[in-house]
């Protein structure tokens, strides 16, 4: 055995590697822009605070156990080395010891389970909510419906493609910014009803300690009560396909007055939107509007250049559907295509957006049909 132990290279190798390691992490640290976040956020709800303290209690219990266990181990490693000429002992069992180290961990576990159970009970109590919001996951965006206020909108990622593709500088809220954040009142119990339109998603805001799966066909519940006004950001937590990493969640928490003003403003905007469906739209107006809609709703699959992804999502550029078959084109946008990822957008967008996006697809990327599809056309087809 001793011939194998001429291994002075072990410690030497270790030293060398550790030096390199520290040097490289120091390098990384010095170039760091954003804050270093090391731990779970304490959050802004009672629940998130109890979850945080649970997390810390368990963490410290683990640290204490680790110190004891590894302490004994490293003590043995240093003091019971063969190179020190020690003779091995011969003990190899003890029922008493086995019982002790079965029972003590059990007691520790019971100690952990008690506060965990209390917090869990509280998390499951969704009764007496003042605001009810239905959250629906879509590939790859969120829809928020305020059940009592008749407010209903989609929330899409707004980070420009140039930033994602490293052609523009990334901002602080990179990938965590949306066009329409969920607005919630502070100090009121808000109940979330979660479901999904397609695959399983998971709605998560770390600052609220709320994470719940959105499952197609089923409804899940969660609740929160925010203590502090502010903007809180999270992301979809369940793999939901290609753009799983690109469907953030942003919540803006407001005090009561601001919230009431926001609700009122939403109602006005809704009426304005309804009115705009009645006006005459020009091709140029529809194209501008359509490009916006296309980039939020269609570009993820069909791509901004209309080329699609071969084998997965068909191209629109030059396709017979987008250049000739107008009725078919309107039909597929409104009603989707069964058995594919093409959803029925008729239920997601209003007539203006639908008309604009179809017009855009029929005229962009050299499709140049010159045809206009008006909001009125759409309304007629939808039978409204």
């Amino acid at each position, binding site marked *: 055995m001793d011939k194998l132990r001429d291994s002075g290279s072990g410690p030497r190798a270790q030293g060398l590697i550790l030096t390199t390691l520290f040097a490289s992490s120091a390098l990384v640290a010095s170039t760091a822009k954003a804050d270093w976040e090391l731990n779970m956020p304490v959050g802004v709800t009672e629940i998130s605070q109890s979850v945080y303290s649970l997390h810390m209690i368990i963490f410290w219990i683990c640290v204490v156990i680790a110190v004891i266990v590894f302490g004994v181990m490293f003590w043995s490693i240093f003091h019971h080395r063969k190179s020190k000429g020690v003779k091995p002992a011969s003990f190899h069992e003890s029922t008493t010891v086995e019982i002790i180290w079965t029972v003590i961990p059990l007691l520790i576990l019971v100690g952990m389970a008690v506060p965990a159970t209390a917090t869990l009970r509280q998390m499951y109590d969704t009764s007496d909510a003042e605001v009810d919001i239905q959250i629906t996951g879509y590939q790859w965006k969120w829809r928020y419906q305020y059940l009592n206020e008749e407010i209903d909108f989609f929330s899409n990622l707004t980070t420009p493609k140039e930033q994602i593709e490293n052609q523009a500088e990334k901002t602080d809220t990179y990938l965590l910014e949306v066009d329409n954040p969920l607005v919630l009142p502070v100090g009121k119990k808000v109940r979330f009803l979660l479901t999904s339109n397609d695959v399983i998603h998971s709605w998560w805001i*770390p600052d609220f300690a709320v994470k719940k799966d959105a499952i197609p066909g089923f409804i899940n519940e969660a609740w929160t009560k925010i203590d502090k006004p502010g903007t809180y950001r999270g992301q979809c937590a369940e793999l939901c396909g290609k753009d799983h990493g690109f469907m953030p969640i942003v919540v803006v928490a407001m005090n009561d007055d601001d919230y009431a003003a926001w609700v009122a403003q939403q109602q006005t905007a809704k009426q304005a939107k309804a009115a705009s469906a009645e006006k005459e739209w020009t091709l140029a107006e529809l194209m501008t509007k359509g490009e916006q809609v296309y980039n939020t709703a269609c570009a993820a699959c069909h791509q901004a250049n209309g080329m699609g992804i071969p084998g997965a999502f068909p191209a629109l550029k030059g396709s017979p559907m987008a250049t000739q078959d107008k009725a078919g084109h309107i039909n597929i946008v409104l009603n989707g295509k069964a058995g594919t990822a093409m959803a029925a957008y008729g239920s997601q967008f209003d007539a203006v957006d639908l008309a604009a996006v179809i017009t855009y697809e029929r005229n962009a990327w050299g499709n140049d049909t010159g045809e206009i599809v008006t909001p009125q056309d759409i309304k007629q087809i939808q039978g409204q």
Partner: protein
Amino acid sequence: MNDMTQPELMHGHHGPARGITRWIYTTNHKDIGTLYLWFSFAMFLIGGCMALVIRSELFQPGLQLVQPEFFNQMTTMHGLIMVFGAVMPAFVGLANWMIPLMVGAPDMALPRMNNLSFWILPFAFAMLLSTLLMEGGGPNFGWTFYAPLSTTYAPPSVTFFIFSVHMMGISSIMGAINVIATILNMRAPGMTMMKMPLFVWTWLITAFLLIAVMPVLAGVITMMLMDIHFGTSFFDAGGGGDPVLFQHLFWFFGHPEVYIMILPAFGIISHIVPTFSRKRLFGYASMVYATASIALLSFVVWAHHMFTVGLPLAGELFFMYSTMLIAVPTGVKVFNWISTMFRGAISFETPMLFAIGFIVLFTIGGFSGLMLAISPADFQYHDTYFVVAHFHYVLVPGAVFSIIAGAYYWLPKWTGHMYDERLGQWHFWLSMVGVNLTFFPMHFIGLAGMPRRIPDYALQFADFNMIASIGGFLFGFSQLLFLYIVIKCVKGGQKAEDKPWEGAEGLEWQVASPAPYHTFAQPPRID
């Protein structure tokens, strides 16, 4: 007991055939063990390359190398290949090599089935890998393939994925049947159950787990196949099914599967630690009972993977408590290993280094597992990099380190040569630093809120991701050193004694090094 291993003395036996047919037609447990080990190493490298694609993309925020759809295929394939292609076959390879030697049997119980169960694998993985080249790409729904992402929304190649998983399952089940039959029927006279080496014990329990859950996995993917092609609705709410049912069925397989990948590791460590501590394993019987109770508990904890799907409160509580309970037998094992080292005479050859690395890092993985068991806290951890850190800690410095430790430990027996100890030590320290550099920062980015399986991330996660990527490359390339060490050891080196480790015990050290093609034609007697 006498050496009874000179092949030329064994009447009626002959050496291996020559050329490639030796490997294709072989029914010899040592040949098949070797095939399994090389196959799993090849898969380890392929899966590792995929991990490096992932880590390269995540080196910086933004999309640089790959597009999200390919990124998802990489995460999925990396998981599938590492679980079914690297870790499981490696353990089966070790079982093939060592179980007959350890129980004093001449070969596995069913040598021809043994050949078949290996040779299915290359075809299964060739099929799985070929999906990457198919239209629509390979599986992109994660190795857990949750419906409906893996059914209604899956790429067309999902059918090939299903067939290849079926083949892997059949291979594993045949391997498990073989192991059980060998252990139950072919032990040398006098080797009672409670005298079996721990590697044999842990594999016996693992094999029963395989028999219990691989068929359930086969059932789940059969249901998927029927949903996709034959109009059933097991997992489609529109037809009266339930996507959550998929998760229950999958994790009913999946959680025991986790222990399938770690129990044999416990066995290997339970051999190496006493050998290099020159002291008998502390608490042999309690090790056996702990292994059995972990296996039994593994059937009643599956829903802790699903705390956020909306289980009823009672369900959450039940699965939280049962999961926490697993910490007890696992703790017993760690305490036993440490008591074995305590007051031993420890030396630090490469297998022991990897074993110590295993104990420390696996325990860290165990701690994060305990944290994940706490259901309210799991609402924050679930599906973040904290989980990624957790299971990589139990699988890489856990399962993989134990396999590497086992390989170093038994290489002298397999090849008849000592490996290069100096390089072995280098391999350990590089791997140790690489592993921690890769996976430790993932705890932080997970707690800070980075979801798993995303190709691009917010800026506050950038620094730790960069460190993890550097660590990933360090760990990955260190394994090429392992390849070199193994090849060097196969080709030559210092001649190994029959029992190259002073403190080693067991029948495998009573045969010559390298182990002759046929061993224990006459069973040894154990008293």
